């Protein structure tokens, strides 16, 4: 069947209405022809003979009567070897190649091949006569650090397919036919290393979903110990501007214990992406000894780029994540910021003249957010491998107020909440994750019972601090004052972390366990003090030692020397029993 054609009948911002001639599908892609340019758009509503297209480009110059060509395809991404290290816009256009072609500016209507044309050393794993289904592997190539599985396209579910011919081990172009398969009814298909998949549809070619139980180590103490994230889980990081959302995500993207990190810079500052672009190739990943860029993909649709492709960008990112999960890898997707994505939906909803919900967000905001986060998960694949996609999203609530629709809708569906607070960032207490309001449903790297005990001290300390503001230090009992100081110590030594210090910036699990034990012992000791000033000076000294400890290499001589000092100091004030 020939694809439908159409004519523009109206333009309102980036929404264009089109009269079409034959059947079209929702979410189908169409191109508007404007003065030699082709502008990509996606069908988001069909009413009678008119379709509403959200156009991923600026619509200046579009006129009523302009020709529209529908493709019959849904908005899709290209999947195959060569995705790693790429920098894409929200529609998977490779930005460095675009810059080579168009210079400083993002010229509209230019769409390049997402996966670079190059050859790969292919090793077949299937042979003639093998029966394959969608998602089955028929060969591999080595892509940087990984064995990239070449799979039967995920949409070929009308199989099974029998291999008629497959290329021998050797070097082939990425888009060249390397395998031909046939179905029982005689249909044949030529397969290359590349295929496409619609972004708004989750990839579900796995045996079963598993509960996310394994901690995803971020090397940030307050997260791994107190507010852990799990592989295959979800978490969100809301915070007012300037609280350090993006810095926290960048730290996570460097240190997270996963195979691949996908950064979706969605509607935020371009400058922040540039830092990643320029720094990551220089940074060495301690896990592999190779450049960090080799495990990174960046989807970058910054705030001044067209709004509609901002909406698409998070889907592009999660689809690529799911693709690599099919190879049994652990992927972390960091989306910054989901609020900008929600705002893109709001703009479109307004243009469609839908009845608005709270703060003019569309009524389907919650279900869209839930749908997105639900694409995270840990799965057992058909070949027995385990893979996971973890999603961490920042939220930029208006006025820093968490009672707004996007934050609330997100909190309903995530497994951990890392709320950043203005008070903490103003006091330069980084990471500014509020230990009092944040929560996590996942298991961390340290025994949960002991973590709870330490957390209880933080809460008690905060209450005492509030009370002290009213009754003063004089009106506080010495026991309470000790608890207050303990809470302050936990904050200064354990919750806060200096991302500029080479040692303190990333703390491996082993070290976290070790220093947590010391801290736990220190907190559990019974002390005897005469006066509050004694308490204060004792805790100041302890804090100083603990802080110095944070800057020394694990288990080297200085580290041990400081540890001995801490033990001695504690012994001086320990209450002897009997």
């Amino acid at each position, binding site marked *: 069947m020939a694809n439908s054609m159409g004519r523009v009948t109206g333009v309102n911002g980036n929404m264009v209405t089109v009269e079409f001639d034959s059947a079209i599908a929702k979410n189908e892609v169409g191109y508007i022809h404007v003065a030699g340019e082709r502008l990509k758009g996606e069908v988001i509503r069909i009413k009678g003979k008119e379709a509403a297209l959200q156009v991923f480009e600026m*619509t*200046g110059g579009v006129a009523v009567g302009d020709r529209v060509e529908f493709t019959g395809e849904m908005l899709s991404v290209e999947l195959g070897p060569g995705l790693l290290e790429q920098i894409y816009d929200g529609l998977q256009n490779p930005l460095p190649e*675009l810059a080579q072609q168009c210079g400083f*500016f993002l010229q509209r209507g230019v769409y390049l091949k997402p996966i670079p044309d190059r050859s790969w050393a292919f090793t077949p794993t299937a042979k003639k006569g093998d029966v394959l289904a969608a998602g089955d592997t028929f060969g591999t190539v080595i892509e940087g650090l990984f064995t990239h599985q070449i799979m039967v396209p995920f949409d070929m579910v009308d199989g099974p397919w029998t291999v008629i011919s497959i290329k021998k081990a050797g070097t082939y172009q990425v888009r060249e036919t390397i395998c031909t398969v046939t179905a029982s009814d005689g249909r044949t298909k030529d397969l290359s290393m590349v295929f496409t998949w619609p972004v708004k549809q989750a990839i579900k070619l796995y045996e079963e979903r598993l509960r996310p139980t394994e901690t995803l180590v971020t090397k940030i103490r307050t997260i791994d110990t107190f507010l852990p994230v799990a592989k295959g889980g979800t978490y969100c990081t809301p915070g007012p501007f300037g609280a350090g959302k993006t810095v926290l995500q960048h730290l996570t993207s460097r240190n997270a214990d996963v195979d691949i990190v996908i950064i979706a810079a969605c509607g935020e500052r371009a*400058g922040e*992406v540039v830092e990643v672009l320029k720094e990551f190739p220089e940074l060495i990943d301690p896990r592999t000894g190779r450049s960090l860029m080799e495990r990174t993909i960046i989807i970058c649709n910054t705030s*001044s*780029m067209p709004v509609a492709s901002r909406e698409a960008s998070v889907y592009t990112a999660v689809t690529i994540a799911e693709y690599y999960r099919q190879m049994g890898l652990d992927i972390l997707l960091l989306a910054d910021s989901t609020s900008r994505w929600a705002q893109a939906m*709001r703009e479109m909803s307004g243009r469609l003249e839908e009845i608005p919900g709270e703060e003019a967000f569309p009524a389907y905001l919650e279900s869209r957010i839930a749908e997105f986060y639900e694409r995270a998960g840990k799965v057992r694949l058909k070949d027995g491998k385990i893979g996971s996609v973890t999603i961490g999203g920042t939220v930029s609530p208006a006025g820093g107020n968490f009672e707004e629709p996007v934050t609330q809708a997100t909190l309903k569906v995530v497994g951990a909440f890392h709320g950043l607070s203005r008070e903490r960032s103003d006091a330069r207490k980084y990471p500014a994750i509020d230990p009092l309001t944040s929560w996590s449903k996942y298991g961390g790297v340290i025994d949960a019972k002991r973590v709870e005990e330490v957390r209880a001290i933080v809460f008690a300390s905060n209450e005492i601090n509030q009370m002290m503001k009213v009754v003063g230090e004089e009106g506080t009992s010495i026991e309470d004052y000790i608890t207050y100081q303990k809470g302050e110590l936990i904050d200064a030594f354990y919750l806060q972390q200096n991302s500029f210090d080479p040692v303190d910036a990333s703390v491996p699990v082993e070290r976290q366990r070790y220093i947590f034990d010391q801290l736990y012992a220190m907190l559990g000791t019974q002390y005897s003090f005469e006066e509050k000033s004694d308490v204060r000076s004792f805790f100041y000294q302890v804090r100083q030692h603990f802080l110095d400890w944070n800057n020394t290499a694990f288990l080297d001589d200085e580290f041990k020397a400081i540890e001995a000092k801490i033990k001695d100091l504690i012994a001086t004030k320990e209450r002897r029993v009997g």
Partner: protein
Amino acid sequence: MQKIYSKIESIVGNVITVRANGIKNGELGLVSYRGGQSLANVIKLDGDVVSLQVFSGAQGISTGDQVRFLGVPMRVSYSPNLMGRVFDGTGRARDNGPVMDENLIEIGGPAVNPAKRIIPRNMIRTGLPMIDLFNTLVESQKLPIFSVSGEPYNELLARIAIQAEVDLIILGGMGLKYDDYLYFRDTLEESGAMSRTIMFIHTASDPTVECMLVPDMSLAVAERFALDGKKVLVLLTDMTNFADAMKEMAITMDQVPSNRGYPGDLYSSLAARYEKAVDFEGAGSVTILGVTTMPGDDVTHPVPDNTGYITEGQYYLKGGRIEPFGSLSRLKQQVNAHTRDDHRALMDGMIKLYASYKESLEKRSMGFMMTEWDEKLLKYGSLFERKMMDLSVNIPLEGALDLGWEILADCFEPAETGLRTDLIRSRWPKAID
């Protein structure tokens, strides 16, 4: 041949609709009416119904008036002859100078490819210690000045326009009081800075639609000068008026308001302008300093709030001074390591002491006894405010650093400053015993 349409179907607010065919989105139309002529641009197409927003407002337009479509989008002239000139929001001369209609460029052009951006690396010297020393302005940065009505933010911008070490200043005024416009013009002329300045001025009495054009006109010109190798500083005042103009337009167009009446695309619209700040590799740069007045001194108001999420820090102008607390240049770390060895240390040290001074002030106001240390801090604080924070101070960074040491030496013993010993040895202006 351009077709003329003489049947205006509706007039709502500043938006008129006509029936016409073959019209392009964004195209300009020229409306002739009894008040003269006005440009208008196409903002919506629905079948043959074309909606245009009339730049000079729809007041006095009758249903029988004529609209002629020009087939081109809104453009602005770009040439070195713009220097020293003053225009209104639509690019008409405000200064009785010649009409500029050569070498027209489109406004609101495409975004810069993030892959072509570079990490900012050059500071912009302004001669104001509170900026240069404590929150350095960096080329390609976008920074708002958060302030409230009545504060001398326009005086501050004028000082920066005169003192900043850049090639070109572009001043975009939105909803300016006429007096403020005259103040800018006269001050820049007297100081001789006018010859390197281009102004796009919308005053409070001008039509609202023109207000919305000012940032795009200013930034389109700035971008072209930057591509030609110029270091351009764009000063925008006041972006809250720009946002309010957008709000007015959105309500006229029956858009659903999102927050306090502002349209849902407030963030994207502000970002599209601020993100024009860029450092072109191998050419010049655009830096943006904008004023955002906070209604009711409320930073959570949608305009300052959305601005804060977009910009790279902010300056708080309060009580006629740039506040050291809350003000932040996110990019200062990129440059202040390479200025002078004592820059970072002095920056942190002096602010910490100033914070202690504020605590002493509080103690004093609550009637506590002042210790010797408190007295030192009080002396330090008043010197700091007079010599560093006053907006009329104009000294280069190195002078400001030396002055910082002098103030410290005037008030404290070396050890009391908390500064590194090696810096004190090399920089302390008095003999150390």
